[in-house]
């Protein structure tokens, strides 16, 4: 094996790029689930975000406008889910699946003319001076602004959930929607807001894939990352910083297997490509096996429909 192909700093940077879309999607879904809603449509919202971000960037020439478009597209799809589950009270599991199937189809349709075109370069938010430092520079100070945004998002959601009244109300709604309704909180409105937030996050996560990580549009390019984000939320026991860590672990696994492939390890590449999915299963099993701990932070009303009688 030729180990010289491995540059630790480059690997770390690749890891950050692999983890960031997962951070966005997982943090968004975490907020949704804390409000007591299970949205299995993350994969669909991500891929629609990916194509919306890519297409609008192509049309407008601005990656910022593209990211905004992805945010809106993700939220729009989430709005559909919110309408179905909160107003029409449809089954959340089935509706989430529908959202994913629909989103995959929609993205493929919209994306047809954009296949194979490279994306304009994504501006990096280098901090002059600091970013030129050896090792630390590229690791800490020379990323695109979305990497920093993902950190701010995680910290912000942590603060919101644990330190703010809005977060307390959100947790209360996820914990016991009937009680929250009885005290006078608007369960449906609060949940809808959380769902839209989750959709916007997933959309941005998807756009990160098509604008920064790839950076081009490939049909089905999310390749299960939306589902992995769902698994990360379980792994994190619904805690934002643990979700952040989880995203980096999963990012690490996919980077590791790619590097092993690059090294020409004597296994067929398909078996290495399986590892992120198998790791997801293993992690899910380990985390879920401790029932008491799995339940400790899980919102008690997760996935249960709410109907205000009278």
């Amino acid at each position, binding site marked *: 094996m030729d180990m010289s192909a491995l540059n630790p700093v480059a690997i770390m940077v690749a890891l950050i790029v692999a983890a960031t879309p997962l951070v966005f999607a997982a943090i968004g879904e975490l907020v949704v689930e804390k409000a007591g809603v299970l949205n*299995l449509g993350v994969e669909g919202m991500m891929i629609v975000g990916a194509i919306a971000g890519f297409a609008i960037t192509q049309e407008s020439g601005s990656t910022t406008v593209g990211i905004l478009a992805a945010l809106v597209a993700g939220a729009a799809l989430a709005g*559909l889910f919110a309408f*179905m589950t909160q107003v*029409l*009270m*449809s*089954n959340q*599991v*089935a*509706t989430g*699946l*529908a959202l994913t*199937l*629909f*989103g*995959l*189809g*929609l*993205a*493929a*349709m919209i*994306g*047809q003319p954009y296949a194979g075109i490279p994306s304009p370069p994504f501006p990096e938010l280098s901090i002059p001076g600091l970013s030129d430092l050896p090792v630390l520079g590229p690791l800490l100070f020379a990323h695109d602004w979305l990497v920093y945004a993902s950190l701010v998002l995680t910290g912000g959601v942590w603060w919101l959930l644990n330190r703010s009244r809005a977060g307390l109300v959100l947790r209360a709604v996820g914990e016991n929607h009937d009680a929250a309704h009885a005290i006078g909180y608007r369960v449906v409105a609060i949940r809808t807001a959380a769902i839209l937030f989750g959709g916007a996050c997933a959309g941005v996560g998807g756009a990160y894939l098509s604008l920064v990580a790839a950076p081009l549009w490939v*049909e089905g390019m999310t*390749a*299960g990352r939306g*589902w992995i984000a*769902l*698994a990360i939320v*379980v792994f994190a026991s619904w805690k934002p910083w643990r979700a952040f860590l989880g995203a980096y672990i999963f990012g690490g696994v996919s980077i590791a297997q790619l590097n092993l492939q690059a090294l020409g390890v004597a296994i*067929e590449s*398909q*078996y290495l*490509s*399986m590892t992120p*999915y*198998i790791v*997801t*299963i293993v992690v*899910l*099993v*380990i985390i*879920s*096996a401790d*029932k008491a701990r*799995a339940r400790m932070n899980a919102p008690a009303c997760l996935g249960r429909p709410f*109907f205000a*009688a009278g």
Partner: protein
Amino acid sequence: MLRLEKRKERSRVMTWAGPLLAVALTMVFGMILFAALGKDPVRTIAIIFWDPLTNDFSRSELLVKGTPLCLIAVGLALGFRAGVWNIGAEGQFIVGAIAGGAAGLAVYDTAGVWVLPMMCLAGAAAGAAWALIPAILRIRFNANEILVSLMLVYVAGLWLSALVTGPLRDPDGFNFPESRIFHDSATLPILLEGTRAHVGALAALAAVVIGWLALERHEYGFSLKLFGQAPRAARFAGYREARVVLLSMGVSGGLAGLAGTFEAAGPVGQLVPALPVGYGFTAIIVAFLGRLHPGGILLASALMALTYIGGEGAQLEMRLPAAAISVFQGMLLFFLLGMDVFSRYRLAPSKALAARRAQGGAA
């Protein structure tokens, strides 16, 4: 304004009218979609829903595409009734194709009536085993079966790709990633001369009948329904969760695996990476469209097969993007789930409107 009001009982009319309304709404919104894509909406809908019925070949293709959808959806319905969410039928389908195909390739060039049954058995067993992984992980470790079964779809797809580039690759195939073409005795007999419709269609019919008996007339189906509607009541009745999960996942995985073997030994005729075309996911829509009822699923799989064939026609004739038909199918599931609300709730005028009406009446 209108508001929703809970019905005391599920409406029987809406339970069956819902899917029909959903299909109608999908057609309407589909026409809007096609118009937005710059296609003649009426013509496109006609190509999708009518043209395939007008010639013999397309009609026989309904059987080809409907067979896997129906087989898989009947199995999924069992689990969905019980609140066991097997989302990985696509993976079980692939593994079934691999096992059935590998069994056929293992005895390549051997004639015998036992070859096909052996392949089917291998495929069904492999599909069931693949589905039992999430089932056992759920029972033993409380792991979410949705995520696990779904992850296994990706694993199965990669495995198929690894096998046809590795051990199962056709030795005379110029390094193309595909297996040998199955020997005659490993290929499904054709049902209608000159078409691709194979005997798997009969198996799908049998699955519908047996599925109906199991769901509506047998304790097994009763325990599934009870578990899905009221898990505590099911435990009170003496049904164990582990048994329900294992049985529903195992059976649905087995049927998906069987469908995979049929696909490999029927229309495709060999193992290729492109063998899975999403039947496992579309079958989820079919199961809901058929109201998780085997009879309904039979009709729904015919309808869904129609959109596949019609969709291909529209791709050729109207240059409709291939993915438009997935959007169309996704929309159908949305409308269906949306319509569902009206079997549990009814629309009633809001309080304010009712009051205004009462006043108007008095005045």
